[in-house]
């Protein structure tokens, strides 16, 4: 496609054309452009939460309504227009902040549903709080109609929305949202504090919706509850964004241009059943194009148009493939030799009546590699989950380098220096190898990197781990082995003091297992990382571990050298059944 004109270079022209509209026409064309710009601001700002963070907020229009009402109420009391618009955006933002607390308890369809329920709720409030909203009568406004100024503000808002979208694609904040979209728990154990991130993007989108709502109120000169909280109007901008392609940089714009035109034709040519026609359109988009028009295979084959479908990860930072002489990160200091890296005392984890971990104590010195073994269901992974705060232990204490982990969140624990992998690998699936590692580098507690630097440094970690040739491969398309390697690289990128490695070797060939052992050894020797390794393969453990801890039914069966474990009668019974029974 080099040298040829790409469709996305034409996109700025759309905005230039939009800017020219008031100079050409002051009648129908201007009104149509105003409705498109307003819809675009809504569609684009909606897509930040949906396309980036993966939360489908069907009640986005309610914030448009809040902005419109805030503007109308203040303007009818004589507040200046600019202040009214600012108040509209602010009111929507504050509403979003308050609603974050209940709404982000939900995910998926539940979140979509609860947000859609905001529309009837706000409609009832607008109808019933008659002292403020004048109820069903609505609020008439007698403001000067400075149409060119109004248009300029809308265009400015639309351009700002595009700018924010580009910024989100490349910023640290944007990467946090992408991590959240893929796997919230892994995002947390990678050091991201997720709630403020979700809340912030929700507030940001709502502020834009409130801004558009305030301008709409100014433009219409009148608002009542059904205009701004009606279910039928509310879903239009969302359908537009989804039709174009949620999460794609040009998705909302393409959707608004096409569906906006279709909607306008429906309104002018269809005397009845307009909602039915629109509903049918929504239904058909859902049935046939849930990923959006720009993601269809057909469109990707047209070279000119294909550039519109650029996914955010269609860029890969250059990496020389050379590890360089500088270490990946400054090794953990050896001065704390006297103290323990990890001190686990009497940890109990109960699920109902079942104690998955029952009174386990464990002391680990810096630079040690501990093998954690035991039959399936003996509590190894549960213990990992207690240490990384995926679970809050029922009782007992966990201390990392002198700091108690009690009442610490997952991201705080990650910042204190605990990195982990998962038994079934959980990379951020729709991100590339390099992005996966870069996220850990951006959000680690010790010496976090700027996002640009992180994307470069991530290449070195990938190279170190042996997947340097797959930097721009989507993580969910990697082989199991590579996913495990990626998880290890991601965990190492957080510069951990303590690395929890969960069954990396199972399912791998002996050659691959040897590679892993080499990696673990390098992490310990070069970077002073202390390691707990959950594994069933004894010969692999024997190559590297200093000590072995055996769990059975949630309790510690024994602790000692690998020879002691293998010769221990109780360990043999736990693994192979009792000799008495066998005989």
């Amino acid at each position: 496609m080099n040298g040829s004109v790409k469709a996305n270079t034409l996109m700025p022209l759309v905005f230039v054309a939009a800017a020219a509209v008031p100079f050409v026409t002051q009648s129908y064309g201007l009104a149509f452009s105003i409705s498109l710009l307003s819809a675009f601001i809504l569609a684009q700002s909606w897509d930040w939460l949906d396309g980036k963070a993966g939360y489908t907020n069907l009640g986005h229009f309610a914030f448009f309504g809040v902005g419109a009402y805030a503007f109308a109420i203040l303007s009818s009391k004589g507040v200046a227009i600019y202040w009214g618009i600012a108040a509209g955006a602010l009111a929507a933002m504050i509403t979003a902040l308050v609603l974050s607390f209940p709404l982000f308890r939900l995910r998926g369809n539940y979140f979509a549903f609860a947000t859609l329920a905001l529309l009837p709720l706000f409609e009832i409030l607008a109808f019933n709080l008659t002292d403020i909203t004048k109820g069903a009568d609505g609020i008439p406004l007698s403001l000067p109609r400075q149409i060119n100024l109004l248009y300029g503000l809308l265009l400015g808002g639309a351009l700002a929305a595009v700018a924010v979208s580009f910024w989100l694609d490349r910023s640290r904040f944007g990467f946090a949202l992408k991590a959240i979209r893929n796997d919230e728990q892994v995002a947390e154990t990678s050091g991201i504090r997720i709630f403020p991130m979700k809340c912030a993007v929700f507030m940001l989108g709502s502020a834009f919706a409130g801004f558009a709502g305030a301008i709409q109120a100014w433009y219409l000169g009148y608002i009542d509850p059904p205009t701004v909280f009606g279910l039928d109007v509310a879903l239009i901008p969302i359908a537009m964004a989804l039709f174009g392609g949620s999460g794609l940089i040009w998705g909302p714009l393409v959707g608004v241009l096409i569906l906006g035109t279709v909607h306008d034709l429906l309104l002018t040519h269809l005397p009845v059943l307009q909602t039915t026609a629109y509903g049918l359109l929504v239904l058909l988009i859902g049935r046939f194009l849930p990923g959006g028009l720009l993601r269809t295979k057909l469109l990707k084959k047209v070279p000119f148009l294909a550039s519109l479908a650029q996914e955010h990860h269609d860029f890969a930072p250059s990496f020389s493939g050379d590890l360089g002489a500088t270490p990946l990160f400054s090794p953990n200091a050896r001065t704390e030799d006297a103290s323990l890296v990890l001190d686990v005392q009497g940890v109990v984890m109960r699920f109902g009546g079942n104690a998955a971990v029952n009174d386990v104590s464990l002391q680990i010195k810096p630079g040690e590699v501990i093998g954690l073994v035991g039959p399936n269901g003996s509590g190894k992974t549960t213990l990992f989950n207690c240490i990384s705060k995926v679970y809050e232990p029922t009782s007992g204490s966990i201390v990392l380098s002198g700091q108690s982990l009690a009442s610490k969140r997952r991201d705080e624990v990650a910042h204190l220096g605990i990195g982990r992998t998962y038994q079934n690998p959980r990379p951020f699936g729709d991100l590339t190898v390099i992005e996966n590692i870069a996220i850990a580098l951006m959000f680690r507690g010790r010496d976090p990197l700027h996002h640009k630097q992180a994307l470069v440094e991530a290449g070195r970690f990938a190279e170190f781990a042996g997947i340097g040739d797959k930097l721009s491969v989507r993580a969910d398309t990697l082989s199991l082995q590579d996913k495990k390697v990626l998880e290890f690289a991601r965990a190492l990128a957080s510069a951990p003091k303590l690395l929890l490695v969960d069954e990396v070797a199972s399912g791998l060939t002996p050659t691959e297992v040897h590679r892993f052992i080499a990696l673990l050894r390098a992490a310990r020797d070069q970077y002073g990382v202390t390691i707990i390794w959950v594994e069933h393969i004894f010969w692999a453990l024997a190559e590297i571990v200093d000590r072995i801890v055996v769990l059975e039914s949630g309790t510690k069966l024994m602790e000692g050298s690998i020879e002691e474990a293998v010769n221990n009668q109780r360990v043999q019974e736990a693994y192979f059944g009792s000799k008495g029974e066998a005989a």
Partner: protein
Amino acid sequence: MDITIYLQLMIGGILLGGIYALVAFGLSLIYGVVRILNFSHGTLVAIGGILASLAYTDLGLPPYVSGIALVLAFGLFGRLFFQFLLEPLSARTPKEAEIGVVLVTVGALLMMSDIAAFLAGPTPKNIPVRFDPIELGDLILSSTQVYALAGIILLTVALHFFLRYSWFGRAIRAVSQDAFGATISAIPGKTLHGNTFAFGCGLVAIAGVLYATMFPVDPYMGFSLTVKAFTIIILGGIGNLTGSLLAGILLGVVESLAAFLIGSEWAPGISIMLLLIILVVRPQGIFGGKPA
């Protein structure tokens, strides 16, 4: 302070709540088994009520006759709706499937209420069957509503036994617990999903007819009923019939007390407020932060 008023309100709330619970059963069953949150669920209730009302006033069909016909018609509709509009989405990526289901059912919601309003008019309709009211001292009960509630309780019990002991009931419980495990145990998962969706839609028809005998129905009330049903399944637990019945009754009573104490114009907002409050106060209540 007149205690009779409160007693009367409580009874009215229980009757109302029974209907809500019935609406929630279908939603809960479909979600529990097929993992689809049907946004147009309550709208189907409204359509069922409107059709039964028209059948009664224009054709003179008694509600139980139109009820049976509607159960069959809605069941067939549900089966086809699922097969042609929802099932094909399962081949897509999880995110696309999720968005697709939302758009298809929301689109259906918009279409159904608009078409119903166009064909039958937007005015509220009901089935004006009236029996003599039952008087208990100072309390006056509408016997229609008492019969309706008795019907709901009977239906809940029948449903409970059906889901517990029939082949269909066992199979859908198996699928809802472990779809893959059920498939390798030779349970035809796809067919079962379609049939569960149809079954849920059939239940909706009953709810619609009963609703119209008690209260007026209009084409635009559907979504607020879906919201109520959703609040109920969050309160009562997915697939938990008894929990849903109790949660429904609780919601009905709260709504009817609130209508009396702060004004009936606030009643439609109660369920949404309740939903938001539950989510803050008892977040781990039903889903425990697991992906929904």
